[in-house]
C-alpha cells in the first residue's frame, strides 16, 4: 500500500524522468562510444576505453574540413535568413499591401513541403540556370528554407508588440532610425534570436537538400552519411558529443543569466 501511495504521489516526476531518459539515451550512447577503441572500421560494438579520438579529433581525413564548411554555411545562412526573415515579418505584421495574404501563406510552404521534393526542384532550377553546384548553391538553398522558420518566430513577437511603444519613442524625440534601434529592435530581439538559433540548427544538420545541391562539396552531415557506408570513425562521436556539450553549456549560461537578472529585480 505504501508503495502504491508513493508511486501515485511521484507519478509526474517518474513519467518526466522516463521521457527525459528516452530523449537522452541516444546522446549517452554517442558519448560513451566516443571513448571506444573499435576493432575494424565500425564503431558499433564496445571494445575498450580509449581517449585517442578525443586527443586527435581531426585525425580522420576530410572530416574537419567538412565540419568547418558546415559551420561556415550555417553561420552565413543564419545571418541571411535572420536579416531577410525579420524584414519580412515586420512587413507582414505592420503593413497592409496587396499580396500580403498570399505572402503570408506562401512563406509556410518550405516548412510544409517534403524536403526531398524541394531538394529535387531546387537542383532542377540550379541546373537549368547553369549554376555551379557547391558552397553558394547550398547557402542559397539553406537561406530559403530557414526563412520560414525565422519569419514565424519573429512574427509572433512583433504581433504581440504594442505599437504605442514606438509612438511613445517618436513622441520622445526619437526619429525613425532611433526608434527602430532603441525600441523596436530590443523588444523584438528575443524573437529574432530564437529564429536565428533555429536557422543555425536547421542549416547545420540539413542533409537531404544539401545532398542534392552540393555537387562535389561535402558538408559534415554528408561526410557522416558517406563514412557510414565504409566504416564510422570514432571522431564522429567526438564531434557529436562536443556539439551536445556546447549546446547544453549555452542553455545553462542562459539560465544562470536569467536567474541572476530575476534575483536583481526582486
Amino acid at each position, binding site marked *: 500500500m505504501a508503495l502504491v501511495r508513493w508511486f501515485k504521489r511521484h507519478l509526474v516526476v517518474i513519467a518526466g524522468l522516463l521521457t527525459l531518459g528516452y530523449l537522452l539515451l541516444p546522446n549517452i550512447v554517442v558519448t560513451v562510444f566516443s571513448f571506444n577503441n573499435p576493432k575494424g572500421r565500425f564503431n558499433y560494438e564496445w571494445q575498450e576505453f580509449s581517449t585517442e579520438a578525443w586527443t586527435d579529433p581531426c585525425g580522420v581525413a576530410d572530416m574537419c574540413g567538412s565540419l568547418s564548411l558546415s559551420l561556415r554555411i550555417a553561420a552565413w545562412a543564419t545571418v541571411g535568413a535572420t536579416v531577410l526573415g525579420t524584414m519580412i515579418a515586420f512587413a507582414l505584421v505592420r503593413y497592409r499591401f496587396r499580396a500580403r495574404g498570399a505572402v503570408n501563406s506562401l512563406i509556410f510552404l518550405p516548412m510544409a513541403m517534403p524536403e526531398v521534393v524541394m531538394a529535387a526542384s531546387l537542383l532542377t532550377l540550379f541546373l537549368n540556370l547553369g549554376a555551379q553546384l557547391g558552397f553558394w548553391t547550398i547557402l542559397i538553398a539553406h537561406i530559403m528554407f530557414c526563412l520560414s522558420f525565422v519569419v514565424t518566430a519573429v512574427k509572433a513577437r512583433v504581433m504581440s508588440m*504594442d*505599437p*504605442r*511603444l514606438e*509612438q*511613445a*519613442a*517618436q*513622441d*520622445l*524625440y*526619437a*526619429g525613425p532610425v*532611433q*526608434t527602430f534601434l*532603441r*525600441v523596436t529592435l*530590443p*523588444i523584438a530581439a528575443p524573437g529574432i534570436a530564437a529564429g536565428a538559433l533555429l536557422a543555425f540548427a536547421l542549416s547545420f544538420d540539413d542533409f537531404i537538400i544539401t545532398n542534392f545541391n552540393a555537387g562535389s562539396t561535402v558538408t559534415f552531415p554528408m561526410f557522416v552519411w558517406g563514412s557510414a557506408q565504409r566504416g564510422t570513425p570514432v571522431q564522429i562521436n567526438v564531434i557529436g558529443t562536443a556539439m551536445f556539450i556546447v549546446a547544453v553549456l549555452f542553455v545553462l549560461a542562459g539560465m544562470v543569466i536569467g536567474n541572476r537578472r530575476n534575483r536583481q*529585480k526582486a
Partner: protein
Amino acid sequence: MTKDSSGDVRLSGISKTYGAFTAVHPLDLTVPQGSFFALLGASGCGKTTTLRMIAGLEEPSGGTVSLGEQDVTNLPPYKRPVNTVFQSYALFPHLDIFENVAFGLRRRGIKSVKKQVEDMLELVQLGEQARKKPHQLSGGQQQRVAVARALINHPKVLLLDEPLGALDLKLRRQMQLELKRIQTEVGITFVHVTHDQEEAMTMADTVAVMNAGRVEQLGSPADLYENPRTTFVANFLGTSNFIEAEVDTRSGDEIVLRAGGGKLVLPGARCSAPAAVGGKVLVGVRPEKISLTHADEAGGIPEGRNRITGRIADSSFIGVSTQYVVDSPVCPEFEVYAQNIDRDPRLVPGAEVVLHWNPAHTFGLDAAQSLLAGTTGSAGIETVAEEAAR
C-alpha cells in the same frame, strides 16, 4: 501685461476622415498657455484623434495645428515640442525606470541626465524605484513614470490620453489631485482626454464636450453644468430633467412657458433655443435644484417659484441625500435629490407632492433633439470602438 502665448495650442479647421467615416469634423479650438484643458466625450467621439493630431501621431485630413506662433502641422511627432502620456502608459519594457524617464533627454543629445532624472523621480515620488523595470511597479506607479517621462522634457504642451483609465477608483481620485498639483507647479499647458465627466470637471479649467466628431459646447465646468446648451451636454454632465413646454409670452428678460396646466418661468439669457411665442422649448432643471414639499403644505411655498405637481414613485436613501423619482403629468420620472437635513417622514412612495425651484435655475433647450442624447445608454464607456480606431 503681455501674456506668454508660446504654449497656446491653436487648431484651425482641423479634421480627420477615415475613408467615408469622419472622425473629427472641421474644428477650431484654442487652448491658452498654462491652462488645464479637457476634451470630454464618449467612446468614438473623436477626442483621442484630436489629441493624436496635436501630438503628430495622426495626420489631419485638413486644417492646421499651431503651437504658439509655430505651425507644426507638417512636423513629425519627434520634432514637436509636445509630449504625451499614453493610455496604458506605453512604458518601454526593456528599459528600467531611470532609462525610461531619461529617454527623451538622451534622444535630444543631453549628456548629463542623472540629476534631472533623479529630481523628476523625486517629484513623482519614485526615487527608490529607479532601477526597477516597469512591470515590477503597480499601476499607479507606472502612471507616475509615464507622467515623469513626458514632463522631464519641459514640453510646451502635455497631452494626456485617458491617463487614469486603468486605475481603480480610489487611486484615480488621488492621481487627479496629484496631476492637478503638478500642473499648477510646472505651469505647462495640459490637454487631457477623458470620458469621465467627473474627472474632467475636477481637474480642468476649461472643458470641451465632444460628440460625434464635433465640439458640442466649451466652457468652464460650472458653466457647462449650469448652462448646458444641448441635451447631450445636459445629460453627459450629470443628470437633467426635461419638460416639453410651449412659449406663452415673452416679456423682456423673462419667458413664460406653458406645460400641462401650469406655467413655468425661464430667464431669457438661459434659453439657447429661438423661443418664439407659440414655439416649443425643452425646459431643463437639475435634480438637486428642486425642493420637494408634501401636497398638504403646498400653500407654504413662496411665490415666484416654478412648480409642478406629482406623485413619488420611488425613493432611495444614499446617505448624504435622498433620491426621489416623481411621476408628474408633464414629465414621467422626474428626478429630485434632496439633502438629508430635515427629512419629512411623509415623503414616501405614493405621496402627492409639489416640486418647486427658483426660475433662475431653469435652462431652455431646442425642443428638436433627443431627450436621451448623452445618457449612459446611448453613449457608453470608452471601449471597443476607440480601441479599434488605433
